[in-house]
């Protein structure tokens, strides 16, 4: 079941960067790479740290605390100390707005 939520405006996210989006008691991270947008759970699977404080390089988000790395397109964990993948969410752009499908 789809449940599209408006998350932010396109210009809210600098290119190759991430912002935090909170909704309904949950927290998400939304990423921009050129004109593409991606969304994952907002907390690292290692110690529940907000990923939006972390560094984005290409398609990798790195946890700001212990450098756990994930591919934010797929959520795949990329080695120690993280071994559990991040959940990802579909995104779409309508005009200036970015929506994510939290299902």
């Amino acid at each position, binding site marked *: 079941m789809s449940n599209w939520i408006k998350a932010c405006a396109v210009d809210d996210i600098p290119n190759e960067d991430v912002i935090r989006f909170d909704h309904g008691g949950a927290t998400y991270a939304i990423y921009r790479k050129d004109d593409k947008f991606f969304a994952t759970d907002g907390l690292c699977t*290692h110690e529940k740290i907000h990923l939006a404080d*972390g*560094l984005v390089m290409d398609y990798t988000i*790195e946890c*700001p*605390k212990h*450098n756990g790395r994930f591919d934010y397109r797929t959520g795949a964990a990329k080695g*120690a100390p993280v*071994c559990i993948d991040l959940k990802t969410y579909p995104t779409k752009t309508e005009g200036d707005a970015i929506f994510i499908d939290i299902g």
Partner: protein
Amino acid sequence: MSDLRSIVIIGAGECGICAALTLRDEGYTGEIALIHGEAVEPYEKPPLSKPGPDGISIKPISGTDRILRENIAVYHDQRVTEIDRTIKSVVLTNGEMISYDRLLLATGARPRALMIDGREIQQARLFRDFSDAKAFFDILAPDYRLTIIGGGFIGLELAAAARQRQVQTTLIESAPRLLGRAVPEALAARIEARHREEQVQFHIGQSISSISPTRKVTLADGTEIMSDIILAGIGSMPNMDLAEQCGLTIDNGIAVDACFRTSDPAIFAAGDCCSFPHALYGMKRMRLESWRAAQEQGAHAARAIIGSTGTYQSVPWFWSDQYDLTLQIAGLPSEGVTIVKRMLDDKSEILFHLDVEGRLVGASGLSRGNKIAKDIRLAEMLIAKRSHPDHQALADPKFNLKSLLNA
């Protein structure tokens, strides 16, 4: 690699685990024996001094589940009593003998005991492993009087954990300030102020003249501090007894080369127990005690064991959490002579440390939450690239440091 059939790793902390898994990642298919001195599963040590409200629990080292699948023999609750270099074998406490083609010492470090007038003070607890942490937090009750000796990371993190449990906390540091050379003075002062806000009582620049059997601590100036619990966090010493016994070269730790090979070509050492020449800092010999260095050195040593000749280049990095504050340090601030300050907001600052030639050699950041993390990570990459960044760019919080990486 083909002549290697048996690799023994002594120590199943971050370093030993990472080494074992890296051997498999790199295609080594022979035997691996991992000697683990404790009965519990290998666990992460940083959380022990930063417990949440629910207290201490075992957090397994990431990837430990793979150990079973990867055909790695773990010897729990066993120590090595002897290394025989002539027949290349180790003997365990249970008498079992294991032969090795290559041996990795990942024996870590242990806390320095508190000595006064040449005598060890038994009343002062030490803090290193799970059993130390469990015993400490189990008896820590609200309104207990805790006296911490040593204003380093362990002492300060435990002071924060104690205050969060309403424990009356006093901290004694014999040096003129907290955190020594590892942390710049300006950041150490902010950390001290945060602890004072939380009612930690400090005695800085004070040595201890005596500690009574009933835990009364008397300082050099005559101040008396009554305590229910005393904890000493006054540094650690590399575990190198085995290396000494079998005659390996020692130099502030088990001396290794830039590939973590000891003076015996069949024996390697990595992590807290070794000193190594760091290629990023003019091959200056150093010993690092940190979670990430332990992993990286374990992995590097594993690759060297199976034939890689690469030189270790990783940038030192560590962090500390106290209350709502996060401290992160990349590189070696003490190698710098110039400081450039970047204020991200009024509570989040980064100090960049540059050497005489303007090369970035360290970065230290302090913030509420993890605000400084991105820039510290970028600083780490700039340090690795031996960059000479523009001071104005570093100081301007609106300037994206990522653009310096391609400069």
